[in-house]
Each structure stands twice: as structure tokens, then as C-alpha cells.
């Protein structure tokens, strides 16, 4: 894709389109023949090969048409000043999007007649928003690629589950402890990886996530191994539980209303909402403190940091510890929400999902991460009706995303200090490959 749009005649354009679209058509044909054109039918005595030429033709035509549309769209885009214009547009949009999203999040469970499913989905999305924001501290701000973030999620969850199982601790007692334990494990991970960077750091953190999971799986006498831990208590509302039986000591009994599972879901929703906001608030505060600035400087250039007198070891360890702490909080919440946890909930795919949320959102951007969590978690769940085509649409969405916004939803960064007017800086304005 060239940056300048040369003035060409309509005929030249048409030829270019035809040539390009023709190439796409041939490519589509080559790919679609085995995938769409041929079909195996099961028979009584084996398999038979069937042909679907019509469907194949439709697929190829669609691919060609899509290519033509993309070409037209590309030609219409004004290239010069696009990045700056876009940054300004995102900035102005951000002004409205943030309060709108926040208002929507606050009011979601209060919508009259809303199904429990949607509140529960909100809880799930919000959990990932919080995990995304937590990992954003490590990956987005400090630039330390962590592929084992699920380890801290697991530590938080199992801290609560075990303390509740053996010592009957409640959720509210365990919440700070879970964060603390996770932060300690964050430091434990941080020490051996102090000297590692990039790919090597990613491999060690990946292994760390697996180690935690394997220890939990195999330490059967303590954790129950693959059987997991049952009957983890739900959180209480100032001592009131959410049992559906009603009566004294329950939420519904105290307020004299009918017991409804929605009450618990709504309560859980607001807990995770509050925890997520806390994560966000702490991150935004830290960004303006020397510690947060040191994280960002570390992401940019480690050698320069050291030559300016920044203690790189402490900076990395605090990033790991604080990021892990929020993972621990989220894990504790996960345990109380699920009632039951097992090592199956803490596989590598969780780390990958959270990392995908951070990267998709635009590493370092709080709003972007929240949007990405909605896209990555909420939309696949809502698309369940599409059954087998769900992942197809999801994949398509990700491909479009890579083409249109390769640096994440929100790739601008607001300086943490500014003389006079604050100015957004678009990452598209600066060359890649630095730092």
C-alpha cells in the first residue's frame, strides 16, 4: 500500500482492480475447492465424495467482491495527516466513550427484567477487564512480556479456596490476603527473570504459569488435585448471605423481598466492578508517580534508565508484584463466584486470552483494554447462537482488526505531565522498531 495516491485515469484503475481481484479469485478458488467444493458424505458402507460447484462459485464471487470493496475503500482513504486526524478523533471520542461505558456498566444489572445470563456475562467480562488492566501494568507499562499471568490468578483463587476450606475464612478476609500472596509470587517470579528480556522472559513466565498449575494438580493432599475444591463460600453482604431459602440472616429475608439468584449475581457484579475500577484508579495514579514513570521508561530503554540512576531491579519487581496483586484479587473473586475451582481453570489459554486483550486493546491504554475485553469475551459468548460459525466470525474480526488497527484499539498515549496543553501522541506517528 503506497502512501501517495497518484492521479490515474478511470481505465487504469479498472484494469488494476480487475487484475488484483482476479488474483484474489484464483487464490480463493484454490483454497475453497478443498474446503467448500468437496464434501464427504457418510454412507452405510463407507464414505462418498460429493461436489458442491454452486456453493464454490458463490464463495469465489464473494471473495472477489470483497477484494474490490477493500480496494475502493483503500483508494478513498486520504493518507496524508490521517494518523494525526485519527488520534484527534479518538481523543474526542474517548471523552464520550469512557463515561458512556461507565454509565452502561453501572446500570447494566439494574435494567428491569434483564436475564440473569446477561448479568453473569457482565461479571465474566468485568473479570477479564480487571485481569487485562492488571496485566497491562506488567506488559503495557513496564514492557515485560508475561505469558504466565494465569499463575497469579491461580494463586489468588487457591489462596482463598484453601483458607476457606481449611480455616473457614470468608471472602472479605481473604481478598487482601490473596492479593498479598499473589504479589509475593510475583516477586518470586521477578527475581530469576531480572536479567531476561523479550523472548526469553516470555518463555520463563510461560513455564512459571505451568509450574504453578502442575503443583496445584499434583499436590493432591492439599489441593485435591484435579478434583478441585468444592463449596467455596459466596461473599456476604455485611454478614447477610444469599441463600435462596430466605429467612433470617439472608439478604432476601432481611430486606423482606423474594429470594432471586439475580441478587447474588448483581452483588458479584458490583464487587468485580469495584475491584476493576480500583485497578484502573491505582494504575492511573501510579503512572503519574516516579514509580509508574520508571516503568514506562523501562519499557522504552533499559540501558538509558540505568544510566539515569533508576534502580532497574526494584522497578521490575514492583511491576511484577503490583500486576500480580491485581491478578490475585481477580483470582479470589473467581473462586468465590464459581464456588468450585480446579486446575483446569488455570491453563495457558487463560494467560493467552488476557494477553490478547491487552495487545488488542493497545498496550498501555486503559480504555482500549476494557473495549478489548468486551470484544474478546463478551462477543463470543453472545454469538453462541451462531454455534459452529462463531469462531469463524471471531477469526474474521481479528483479521480485520489486524489490518485496520495493527497497534490496538487505542494506540495513543497521553503524557503523564505536560507544560500547558496536553497533547495526545499517536504511536502511528513514530517509526516502529525502537525501544
Amino acid at each position, binding site marked *: 500500500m503506497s502512501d501517495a495516491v497518484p492521479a490515474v485515469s478511470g481505465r487504469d484503475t479498472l484494469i488494476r482492480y480487475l487484475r488484483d481481484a482476479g488474483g484474489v479469485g484464483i487464490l480463493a478458488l484454490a483454497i475453497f475447492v478443498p474446503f467448500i467444493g468437496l464434501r464427504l458424505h457418510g454412507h452405510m458402507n463407507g464414505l462418498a465424495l460429493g461436489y458442491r460447484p454452486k456453493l464454490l462459485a458463490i464463495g469465489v464471487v464473494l471473495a472477489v467482491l470483497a477484494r474490490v470493496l477493500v480496494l475502493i475503500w483503500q483508494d478513498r482513504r486520504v493518507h496524508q495527516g490521517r494518523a494525526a486526524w485519527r488520534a484527534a478523533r479518538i481523543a474526542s471520542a474517548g471523552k464520550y466513550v469512557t463515561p458512556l461505558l461507565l454509565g452502561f456498566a453501572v446500570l447494566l444489572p439494574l435494567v428491569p427484567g434483564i436475564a440473569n445470563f446477561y448479568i453473569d456475562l457482565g461479571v465474566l467480562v468485568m473479570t477479564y477487564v480487571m485481569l487485562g488492566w492488571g496485566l497491562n501494568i506488567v506488559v503495557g507499562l513496564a514492557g515485560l512480556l508475561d505469558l504466565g499471568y494465569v499463575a497469579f490468578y491461580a494463586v489468588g483463587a487457591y489462596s482463598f479456596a484453601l483458607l476457606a476450606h481449611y480455616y473457614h475464612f470468608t471472602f472479605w478476609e481473604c481478598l487482601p490476603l490473596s492479593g498479598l500472596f499473589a504479589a509475593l509470587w510475583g516477586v518470586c517470579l521477578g527475581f530469576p527473570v531480572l536479567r531476561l528480556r523479550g523472548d526469553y522472559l516470555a518463555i520463563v513466565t510461560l513455564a512459571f504459569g505451568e509450574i504453578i498449575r502442575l503443583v496445584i494438580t499434583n499436590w493432591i493432599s492439599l489441593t485435591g488435585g484435579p478434583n478441585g475444591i468444592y463449596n467455596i463460600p459466596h461473599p456476604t453482604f455485611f454478614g447477610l448471605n444469599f441463600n435462596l431459602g430466605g429467612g433470617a440472616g439472608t439478604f432476601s429475608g432481611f430486606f423482606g423481598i423474594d429470594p432471586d439468584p439475580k441478587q447474588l449475581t448483581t452483588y458479584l457484579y458490583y464487587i468485580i466492578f469495584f475491584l476493576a475500577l480500583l485497578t484502573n484508579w491505582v494504575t492511573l495514579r501510579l503512572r503519574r508517580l516516579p514509580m509508574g514513570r*520508571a516503568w*514506562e521508561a523501562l519499557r522504552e530503554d533499559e540501558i538509558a534508565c540505568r*544510566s539515569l540512576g533508576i534502580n532497574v531491579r526494584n522497578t521490575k519487581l514492583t511491576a511484577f508484584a503490583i500486576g500480580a496483586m491485581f491478578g490475585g484479587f481477580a483470582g479470589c473473586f473467581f473462586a468465590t463466584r464459581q464456588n468450585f475451582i480446579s486446575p483446569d481453570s488455570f491453563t495457558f489459554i487463560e494467560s493467552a486470552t488476557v494477553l490478547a486483550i491487552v495487545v488488542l486493546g493497545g498496550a498501555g491504554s486503559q480504555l482500549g483494554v476494557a473495549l478489548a475485553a468486551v470484544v474478546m469475551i463478551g462477543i463470543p459468548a453472545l454469538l453462541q447462537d451462531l454455534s459452529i460459525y462463531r469462531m469463524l466470525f471471531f477469526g474474521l474480526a481479528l483479521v480485520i482488526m489486524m489490518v485496520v488497527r495493527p497497534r490496538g484499539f487505542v494506540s495513543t498515549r497521553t*503524557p503523564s505531565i505536560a507544560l500547558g496543553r496536553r497533547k495526545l501522541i499517536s504511536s502511528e506517528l513514530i517509526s516502529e522498531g525502537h*525501544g
Partner: protein
Amino acid sequence: MSTMLSLSGVTAFYGQIQALRGIDLTVEKGEIVTLIGANGAGKSTLMMTICGNPRARTGSIIYQGEDITQCAMHDIARKRIAHAPEGRRIFPRMSVEENLLMGAQVVKFADYDKQLALMFDLFPRLKERINQRGGTLSGGEQQMLAIARALMSKPDLLMLDEPSLGLAPLVVKQIFGAIRQLNRELGLTVLLVEQNAYQALRLAHRGYVLVNGAITMQGGGAELLARPEIKAAYLEGGH
């Protein structure tokens, strides 16, 4: 004059490879000292060794009467030795002001504004670019930013590693002019590593010539400039 920095018998290694062989070097207070030499002679290594990375294997580095040979890199930086590393190494995604703020790790908050104003006096261009991202500056501006960032810590000793790298001659002149101004007006001590031997020796009070990790010649800037072997090795073919 008292001694700002003195190295005696310093050796340094990268793994098995010896990069510095018994370096003796002194920098007096208020001096500009330059270190010249060919590619791979060990100029940058010597500077990095003073900064503590890699650490000297033998010998000692005394800074203002204090032995800093075994100090950690960030501790050395906190002793008001400012270092503008080779290749500028500014923070590309942070704004100019944030870059400068990162340099002010050790100064008190009250001094920050004063120091900032001083930098804008020295490099007015940076003031125009204050809210711009470091990575969007031109090469010369980035070098100015790197020097200004190092100076934000109110250093006693400024170490510059090839500030002329990849810059147009006019910009080099500007940068060297600023170094001279800092030295004359503020009495800043400067240790300068340079490929551009002619410019560096003209600027410096004294110079050292480094060959294969060892110092082979030293003397006043003008004196070295006049020596035929320097001319032959470093100055032929323009500057």
C-alpha cells in the same frame, strides 16, 4: 585544580575478551577531556566501565575521592555522574518533558523547574517540542534531548558518548558549542568520547588516544592535533 575522576590500571572484559588493558586516566575539575580512537578501540567500553557496566575487573576508579569501582550502575548515576549513552537512547514514546523528568531522578522537586529552564536556555529547540514524542524529533534534536536529560540531574561530571554520531556538520557544531558553553559558564567537567577527532580535540583541553583497549598517547588538545601520527591515523580524509 582538584581531580574529578581518576582511573588507574583499569581492565575490563566481555566474557573472555579483554576490552580494556590497564587504563590510567584523570579528569580534573572544570576540564573537557576527550577520548578518541578507532572503532572497537574500547572508547565506549571505557565510558560504560566508569558507569559500572561492565564492572572493572582490576584497577580502581576514584570519583571525587570516593572509590566507585564496585558500585552498581544506578548508584553511580546518583552520584551526579551524568551519562548520555551512545546512540542517544532517548525514550521514543515519551514526551520531551517526560524524558527530561526521567533525567531528574536525583534532583529535588524545587530544583526541577530551574533545571528545566536552564535546559531550554541551552537548547531553545527543545522548548518548542516540549509536548512532542521523543521519537518524532530529528536526530540533532534527539541528541540535544539526550544531553539535556543527562544534565537534568545537575551533574558534576558529564560523560558524552559520541554526540556527533550520525548528525549533519552544522548540528555537530551546535552541539559542541553547547558543550563549550556549559563548560565555560557553569564550570561543568566533561568527558567526551568521539570519532570526530578533529572537532573533539579542538574543543577539549586534553585528550587521550585509545588503541586496542590501551592508551597510547595523551596530551593537550591542540598538542595532539598537531602530532603527525594523529593526523595520519584520525584526521586524514577530512573531518
